[in-house]
């Protein structure tokens, strides 16, 4: 037969189970704790203090049950505390919920000009292949711009309708080739340089012409440099720049400072050569003039034309940018409309 004391413990346990299941917040939890465990008025505390009134034969059993109940209540309170505090933390975060679908608060970074992006990209490709970047003046002598490039006085390329003259013997350079001559005057082969920069021709501004544009030229002179090296270099450059699927095609052409000369076409970046609006359905885009350095040029810079051979090519940085990004109007580069520049 269980004693009256142990029965009372049982009813306290039942009461606790009932009350604890209704506790929702920390305040109610504290009340619950005090109601059962408070030193002064706790229901269980009171039972434990009554130990003296329990008959000796029941004391041990009562003590065991009472302590088990105490442990159970304490564990239960502790669980409740954890649950409630987790819930309140969740609620606090929930109150801070944002509309994460609103646009971000962007701090606009500035953009580089597409001509700079393309120029640096090309420079980096050639630097990685072992080339050195050179530059030179834009206001150039007619000697460097023409004579030393096998374009003698009276040559149609010197026509003042095509070239800006500053004085009788100074022009705005019409290509970056003078930098090649200046470099060759400074050093003996091997020469392997690229010359990017601003050049000028008297063309009225329209979607494909501009009196000012940007060129990049390449010059290689060494023993044993061949036409096949020219082809391979162009092929590698274009694969690096446009992608590995790109094809490069050379067609015979004429420029006074090279022999043989070539026009260089690149397979269209957008249709991969099958023909589209960008390449005017041809599958190809003409980008460069190229060739083996004309032996007459070696005479101007005192290179041994029997010992050395070389190649050179040049094209418009503007044209490369137009092909790469499908830009159909050269003027966009110089109007500097933010709606254009902001896209790079």
């Amino acid at each position, binding site marked *: 037969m269980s004693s009256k004391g142990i029965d009372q413990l049982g009813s306290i346990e039942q009461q606790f189970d009932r009350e604890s299941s209704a506790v929702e917040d920390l305040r109610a939890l504290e009340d619950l704790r005090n109601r059962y465990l408070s030193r002064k008025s706790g229901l269980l505390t009171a039972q434990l203090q009554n130990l003296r009134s329990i008959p000796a034969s029941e004391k041990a059993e009562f003590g065991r049950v009472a302590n088990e109940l105490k442990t159970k209540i304490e564990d239960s309170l502790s669980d409740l505390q954890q649950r409630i505090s987790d819930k309140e933390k969740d609620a606090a975060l929930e109150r801070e919920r944002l509309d994460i679908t609103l646009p971000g608060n962007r701090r606009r970074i500035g953009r*580089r000009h597409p001509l700079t992006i393309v120029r640096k990209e090309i420079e980096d490709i050639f630097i990685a292949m072992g080339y050195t970047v050179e530059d030179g003046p834009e206001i150039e002598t007619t000697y460097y711009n023409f004579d030393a490039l096998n374009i003698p006085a009276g040559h149609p390329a010197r026509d003042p309708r095509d070239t800006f003259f500053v004085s009788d013997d100074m022009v705005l350079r019409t290509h970056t080739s003078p930098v090649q001559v200046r470099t060759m005057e400074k050093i003996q082969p*091997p020469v392997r340089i690229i010359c990017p920069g601003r050049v000028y021709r008297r063309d*009225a501004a329209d979607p494909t012409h501009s009196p000012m544009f940007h060129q990049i030229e390449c010059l290689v002179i060494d023993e044993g440099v061949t036409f096949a090296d020219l082809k391979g270099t162009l092929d590698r450059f274009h694969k690096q720049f446009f992608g590995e699927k790109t094809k490069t095609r050379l067609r015979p052409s004429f420029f006074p400072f090279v022999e*043989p000369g070539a026009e260089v076409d690149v397979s269209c970046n957008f249709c991969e050569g099958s023909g589209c609006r960008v390449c005017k359905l041809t599958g190809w885009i003409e980008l460069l003039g190229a060739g083996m350095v004309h032996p007459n040029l070696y005479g101007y810079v005192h290179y041994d034309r029997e010992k050395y051979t070389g190649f050179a090519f040049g094209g418009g940085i503007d044209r490369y940018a137009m092909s790469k990004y499908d830009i159909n109007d050269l003027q966009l580069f110089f109007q*500097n409309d933010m709606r254009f*520049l902001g896209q790079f």
Partner: protein
Amino acid sequence: MRASYQWLKEFVDINEDPRQVGTRLTQVGLALEGLETGAGDSIFDLDVATNRPDCLSHLGIAREVSAIYGSELRKPKFELREKTKESKSVFSISIADPDLCGRYCGRYIAGVKIGPSPDWLKARLEALGQRSINNVADATNYVMLELGQPLHAFDADTLEGHQIIVRRAELDETLTTLDGVERRLDPSTLLIADANRGVAIAGVMGGAETEISSGTTNVLLESANFDPLSIRKTSRAVGLTTEASYRFERGCDVEMARYACDRAAALIQQLAGGEIYHGVIDVYPRERKPIALGLRGGRIEGFLGAPVEDAIVERIFKSLGFKIERASDCWTIEAPSHRVDIGCEEDLLEEIARHHGYDKFPLTLPSWKGFGAALPREAEERRLRNILSSLGYTEICTYSFSDEQMERRFRPDIAPVKLQNPMSEDESVLRTSLVPGMIETIRWNQNRGNRDLRLYELSKVYGPHGERRALILGAAGALHAPSVHETERKFGFYDLKGDVEEILTAFDGRTETDTYGLPNYYHRGRVARFGDLALFGELHPEFTEAFKIRHRVYAAEIDVDRLLGVESRKQVQPICRFPAVRRDFSLLLEKGTQYGAVHRMILEAGIPELVRVEPFDRMEAGPFPEKKYSLSISVIYQSTERTLTDAEVESFDQKVLQLLEQRLGAQLRR
């Protein structure tokens, strides 16, 4: 050069269709730019390079076709029926200036009947873009298109003295050309003259008084060769480019002159009747001597990168009309007279490459020792661009050209470099400053609704002593546009100054504010410089209003080469282990006392533990006299060796405040 497919087929057998022929011609250097196919014929539009005048004729193009397909080239067939009477008995020709006229062939044809050309001839000329004139003139044009030799027919009866003299024009000599324009000439012009006067500008255009007319009965036919440079100069000087001058200035085949003369005479006779007098009057003072060039066998692989079989090499040259002889490992090659472009071994290598096929050579990379390198200061330039991007500045690229008035307005001290032949008056000089281009770009954008702008340009400016790179920053509108997150914040002077400080500090440039040399296009009260490195401020409203801009515009001009060249041996400072002490003071100062004076004064206190001074508040009015303003500053002390004691900090404060009071009359606000 426009060329007829059917006409080409008269000289060479072609089995492929015009489209395929066009592709093959492109591969040998005659780029196909257009192909029109009409009734019974196709017309090629070919881009003939300036060094290949031999291809400005059907025979020349047919020669390339014959080399491509390995088929035989046939010259035009004609029958020349001459009278026994000698040409020389009725006419004389002399060349006074053999430097400018290498050969002059003439034929006399009597009793022609001028009339319209037959339909086949008209059709052929018109398909190639030539207007039909009359049977004799058309015959000369036809032969030019066929053989590449320009010809001219004179009404022989209008030539005084029955003679032709090739001489330079006299100063101010006049001649009315076929187009009815009277032209005043000078001795740089080569003239075809009769006994008394000029009758044609050599190689460019005939004279009106001696042209073939409906009443012409006797014809003097000219087939000559002129110096290319002289023709080019004359053509430019008189402003006339004709089919004849186009060919002569590129170089005609001197050996073709006589053949073409015969061919044209025969055609005239066929079309207009008449009697061809016997013999060509052929004045050829200095006969062409063929040049033999050597071509070394090993050179083909050494130069082109792959060997080409001897048989192919020899076939290519023979089919193009070259004479080729083999001697051990070397060929001796003689170019035909129509190939005025051949002068060295590399020219021969090109013939092999283009007819063997550019695509036949492999793709290789040149081998070498050494390394590549960017331009000097490239790494610094890229770092600068990154900083500019992070600060929100977008790069622009403007024309180097400018308007002289504009340049003088912004840089009255520099005489800009002038162009002799500008495109227009407002592009007649090279810019001396990047400021006008920046303002113009801001105007362009604001007019198109792009109001909030931060821009930069890193580019050259030009002056009488050369060219240098410059950097400009420009800003207008809001720093932050209003959004759901923030209200609008306008860009202001201190934003600009902060950006310039950020840039200069990154390159260890000095950022102490100076006030010397401030140009007048800046707002007088809102401009400063950091030494010679940077000049910055709000632009003067009058200068921006000239561009019709109504908003504030900010600009900073930075000497970029000096900035990137600042020698910096950056050494990292160890992070201090001891705490810093921050002391805040509110000072009352006389209005007009600048912050800079306060800052300098605190530094003058000479406290080694003073690491930083920061202003954090400024009040123009408050519970203090009207002539004063309140400036709140933080002074930060820190020792690298120990924690500072309260007493030390107190003594530093006293020193600072005493100095500020004594020297600037600053009072501490309690």
